[in-house]
């Protein structure tokens, strides 16, 4: 498989996994909550491609499924976790927002993960094995004070941590304009942290830029703050969308699957998609049949 194909396949699988979750919810086969990653797949896919799951660490947030799948490829463990099955990656105790598997962690309290990821980066700096820690946050999370305490600590102590801000312009129902003053990258720069700002849904671009950024953190042992402008097509959670449908439609032209898919010939794309569908169907069947936690 070429790199382009691999990236497409991963994104496609994440997309279909998340759509399947929403379907299962609608069908009453799932309870609880979920925050799907539909529309943002290029970020997790392009960035995590540069991590070594045996060495590097990811700390994610409430919208963690895409990050989790890109890092672990453990669709069955994730689906069982969300479905409250004993085979869930946390035995059903964590659910959608609270995952842990090897070097992957997530927690659902906004901002809360940032100090913990900072502590992880401190531990990894001390261990000296060259690990990079990534903390994923959303634009709304910039409202939390601990984020700035942690940016200060990460810079002050030279910690190998990459903060990835997935800027989808909304926090639940609230647009950025009602939450964020000033400039986002300037906030990190004020702490002496290098930043980069991407406005793209093209996984090839994210992948290329992330290669440099991850390597930069590895080489310098210093923090880095990467902002990626993106968009989510799905509701914040399930069925709670009040955005203008026209706005969503317009953004669909930049759907990362469209952008990346255009680079593949139809036959290749079709066979990748079919393989994903088959795998997903099998995962769903197994999860549905699995024992309750």
């Amino acid at each position, binding site marked *: 498989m070429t790199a382009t194909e691999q990236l497409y396949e991963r994104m496609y699988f994440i997309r279909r996994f998340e759509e399947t979750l929403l379907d299962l919810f609608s069908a009453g086969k799932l309870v609880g909550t979920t925050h799907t990653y539909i529309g943002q797949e290029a970020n997790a896919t392009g960035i995590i491609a540069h991590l070594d799951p045996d060495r590097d660490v990811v700390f994610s947030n409430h919208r963690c499924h895409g990050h989790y799948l890109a890092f672990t490829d453990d669709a069955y463990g994730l689906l069982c976790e969300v479905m409250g099955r004993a085979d869930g990656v946390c035995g059903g105790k964590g659910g959608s927002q*609270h*995952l842990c598997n090897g070097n992957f962690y997530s927690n659902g309290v906004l901002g*809360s993960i940032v*100090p*913990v*990821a900072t502590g992880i980066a401190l531990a990894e700096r001390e261990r000296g094995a060259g690990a990079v820690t990534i903390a994923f946050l959303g634009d709304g999370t910039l409202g939390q*004070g601990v984020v700035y*305490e942690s940016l200060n*600590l990460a810079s002050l102590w030279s910690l190998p941590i990459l903060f990835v801000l997935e800027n989808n312009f909304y926090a639940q129902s609230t647009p950025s304009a009602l939450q964020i003053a000033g400039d986002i990258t300037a906030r990190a720069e004020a702490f002496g942290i290098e930043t980069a700002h991407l406005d793209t849904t093209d996984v090839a671009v994210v992948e290329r830029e992330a290669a440099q950024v991850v390597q930069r953190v590895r080489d310098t042992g210093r923090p880095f703050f990467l902002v990626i402008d993106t968009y989510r097509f799905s509701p914040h959670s399930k069925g709670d969308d009040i955005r203008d449908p026209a706005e969503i439609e317009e953004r669909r032209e930049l759907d990362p699957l469209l952008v990346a898919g255009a680079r593949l010939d139809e036959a290749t794309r079709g066979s990748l998609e079919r393989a994903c569908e088959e795998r997903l169907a099998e995962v769903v069947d197994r999860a549905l049949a699995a024992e309750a936690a």
Partner: protein
Amino acid sequence: MEQRCAQVLNEALLEIFERRDDVYLLGEDVLDPYGGAFKVTQGLSTRFPDRVLTTPISEASLFGVAAGMALRGYRPILEIMFGDFVALGFDQIVNGIGKFREMFDDQVTLPLVVRTPMGGRRGYGPTHSQSLEKLLLGVPGITVVAASECHDLRALLSEAVDDDEPVFFVENKLMYGRTQRRPENGYVDGLRCVESDGRYPSLTFSGSDAGGGSATLATYGGMLPIVLEAATRLILEHELFTEVVVLGRLHPLELEPVLESVARTGALVTVEEGTRTGGVGAEIAARVQEAAWDDLHRPIERVAARDGIIPAARTLEDAMLPGVDDVVAAVMAVEGVRG
């Protein structure tokens, strides 16, 4: 050899750092020559410069930083300058530190220690004098240890660092300057003293060698000298004997020594420096009546701070916090009912 408690804790830290190289200490103003606001870390940063980190004033994050280090196999000790500032860390404590192990299905442990001094009687005023440990009692997944001047502080702190659970190690500001008093031949100040087994032991003091008496006084931490003084006064002035149980572990509560004592005395008075409502005493009382209703011959009494702020002025602070007189009065009240 007589040693002040702060010095014992200081030596304990040096020993722990010597013994384990996965231990780090983080806190504000902890570097030499300052050595921490209460001097407990003195000398540590000189001996172990790479493992003692002075931090910005960022408590809300520091609890999380300690959690992150612990998740990755280190054993951080976080010094919080005043116990009151634990309030800044509550998100991390409740939604992270207390949850990670169970929420992540036992795939992780959090061997961290938070050391912090609680307590008033120094005129520091409403935000630097509180005893907030009761707030930690409602948090599943953490261990709360209360150090007292009669505990083997060296062992207590060492055990906390070796513990795979997150431990809140509650110290006390007045205790720092007091002499550590370990039982000698089973006695402290003429009171018989029996230590329970295991980690974070409780101490049971009795005025008579036979044990028993008017009531069991259940207390912990910085209230120890006040309660022991009350117990002595009750003997000398009122010929009333009591047993005093000084708890080592508040959460999960080590109830056994209290139950054993109540079986001998038939009455319970709880004594704490924190405010009364929803306090440690309330929890002890609820559990004792559940477990030992038949042993209780009298209603349980609670001695605690009034529900309010701790004023700075000495006179006002004294009126707010429970003292020897309050403890004596509570035991007399129990006796009064009995009489």
